[in-house]
């Protein structure tokens, strides 16, 4: 659906995006992550033909963007962080204008359906200047969905929304994806990406440092799994027994609570349970801690920055592992 090849953007002596190879499959929700200034917005603007790449290629819907940007952009719905609306227009006029622009059949009905789904129907005839940030965001989303495009590009779509609005937008995005739409979503709200995206790409300093499913990312980042074990009482013999196990890399004891790091992708909870029981430990509870997307994202960002900064940099010594 979206494919970039060695996509690069340089502004004088600053390289905003470096040799970016993105692959967004049809029908998926692709989360585009990165810290501020990573080059996410520049990438999106290149995908939209707003900013011309310095080099590289963009293919959308199997066609080069340059070959027919006009027709390709008709198939894309876009929501950016700031909506840039016409303040004097009502929502009805605003959406009506874009319906005319995109030649939307049955525009009135479509506008009504969308504004109802987004909870804007009561303010349909109010000037946009009186809208809250969240309502403006929803109106932007309605505009993006108006022509029922097969591809949605969303840049910080829940920015400025309250929890209810955030949930509404999330549900809408998931519903549109269930209807077959491909969604390319850039956000700094990692929990949102975690809840919606099938795959993510992590951009750091203009480079794609990781791309894959969330499970893949976690596996790549964390070759060890952390187990939290709670014993009935502290037991030094139990700790010693765990340290002899070949798949255990580290054991930390804080009273009757143990933190056990185990190697490999296999589930070692049963082995840990047996070893502890054999050493006379009584287990009250045990759980495996999964790396959150936020942990993964921070680990990748730190790792990339460390590599770029070089080995003598202080950041390099504290960087997380990026396989």
């Amino acid at each position, binding site marked *: 659906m979206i494919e970039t090849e060695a996509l690069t953007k340089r502004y004088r002596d600053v390289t905003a995006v470096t040799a970016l190879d993105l692959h967004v499959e049809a029908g998926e929700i692709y989360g585009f992550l990165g810290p501020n200034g990573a080059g996410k917005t520049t990438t999106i*603007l290149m995908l939209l033909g*707003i900013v011309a790449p310095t080099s590289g290629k963009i293919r959308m819907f199997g066609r080069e963007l340059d070959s027919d940007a*006009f027709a390709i*952009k*008709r198939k894309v719905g*876009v929501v*950016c962080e700031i909506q*840039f609306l016409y303040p004097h227009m009502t929502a009805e006029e605003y959406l009506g204008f874009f319906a*005319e*622009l995109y030649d939307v059949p049955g525009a009135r009905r479509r506008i009504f359906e969308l504004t109802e789904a987004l909870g804007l129907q009561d303010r349909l005839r109010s000037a946009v200047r009186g809208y809250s940030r969240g309502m403006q965001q929803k109106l932007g989303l309605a505009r993006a969905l108006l022509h029922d495009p097969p591809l949605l590009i969303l840049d910080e779509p829940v920015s400025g929304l309250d929890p209810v609005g955030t949930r509404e937008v999330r549900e809408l995005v998931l519903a549109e994806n269930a209807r077959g739409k491909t969604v390319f979503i850039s956000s700094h709200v990692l929990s949102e990406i975690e809840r919606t995206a099938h795959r993510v790409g992590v951009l750091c300093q203009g480079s794609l440092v990781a791309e894959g499913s969330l499970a893949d990312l976690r596996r790549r980042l964390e070759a060890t799994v952390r187990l939290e074990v709670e014993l009935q009482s502290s037991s030094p013999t139990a700790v010693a027994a765990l340290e002899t196990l070949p798949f255990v890399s580290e054991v930390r004891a804080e009273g009757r609570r143990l933190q056990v790091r185990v190697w490999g992708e296999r589930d070692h909870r049963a082995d840990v349970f047996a070893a502890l029981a054999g050493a006379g430990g009584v287990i009250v509870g045990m759980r495996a801690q999964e790396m959150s997307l936020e942990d993964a994202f921070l680990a990748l960002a730190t790792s990339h920055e460390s590599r770029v900064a070089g080995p003598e940099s202080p950041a390099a010594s504290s960087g997380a592992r990026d396989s």
Partner: protein
Amino acid sequence: MTRDPRLALRVRAARAIASRELRELLRTPDLYVALGVALTAASLAVRSVLAEVAQEGLVARASPLYLPLFVATVVLAFSAATTSAVSIARERESGTLEVLFYGPVDAASYVVGKYVAQLLAYLALCAPLAISLATYGWVTNLGFSADLLTGIALSVLAAACTIAFGLLLSSVCGSIRDAILLLVGVGLLLLGVQGGSWLLAGLPQREGALGVAAETLAAADRVVTLVSPYSYLDRGLQAALLGDAAAYAIAFASPLIYAALLLGGAIWSVEWRGVRRNEE
């Protein structure tokens, strides 16, 4: 014959933009203020003609209402140039230009859409202008000749030039303030060249540096006459009054070529300058 689908998409985009822009123009007071100022200026010009009649006992003019017509069309054309000059810069400054370009809009469809809307707005003003001039002629017994109707029609072509001129200036600006400053700056430069040339040409002694300055300004004045949209307005009205067929042809063709060149420049400029806001 197969119609080019890309052209059809561009036409649709231009039509949607023109339609929205025209609604905006008709909704805001600017257009009606401009009409009010133009008609007031025209009525003052009628008064000056009547004063001349009272003083001289006759009017030595082919059409006594030529001056009021010229004054009114200059005001309206200037207003159209100002509105156009602000138009693209305002959208760029507010960020709405960028949002339009996320969708099926390109520089050509956008500029053409804006242009058509401004031209239609000017056309909408021609009817009250014609009615007002006819009323002035009837009330004052100065009459209303067919030449004046031709003059009004030709003023549309002149307005086409001033609108294209305004859009070209607007296409390079990132804010309303910049656009107005540029319009005023260019206007003052054109007036300065014409005024300076006229002043120096009137001097009895033009030796040495003064002579060089006079010649330079005279040359610059000829260029200004060629590029200034207002000179097309004057030539168009003169042609209408003279009833000269060749002058008519030139009066029709030259503004069209001029406007097309300026619009091409504006389209290129939007592409070159980009659609993003200044701070981004």
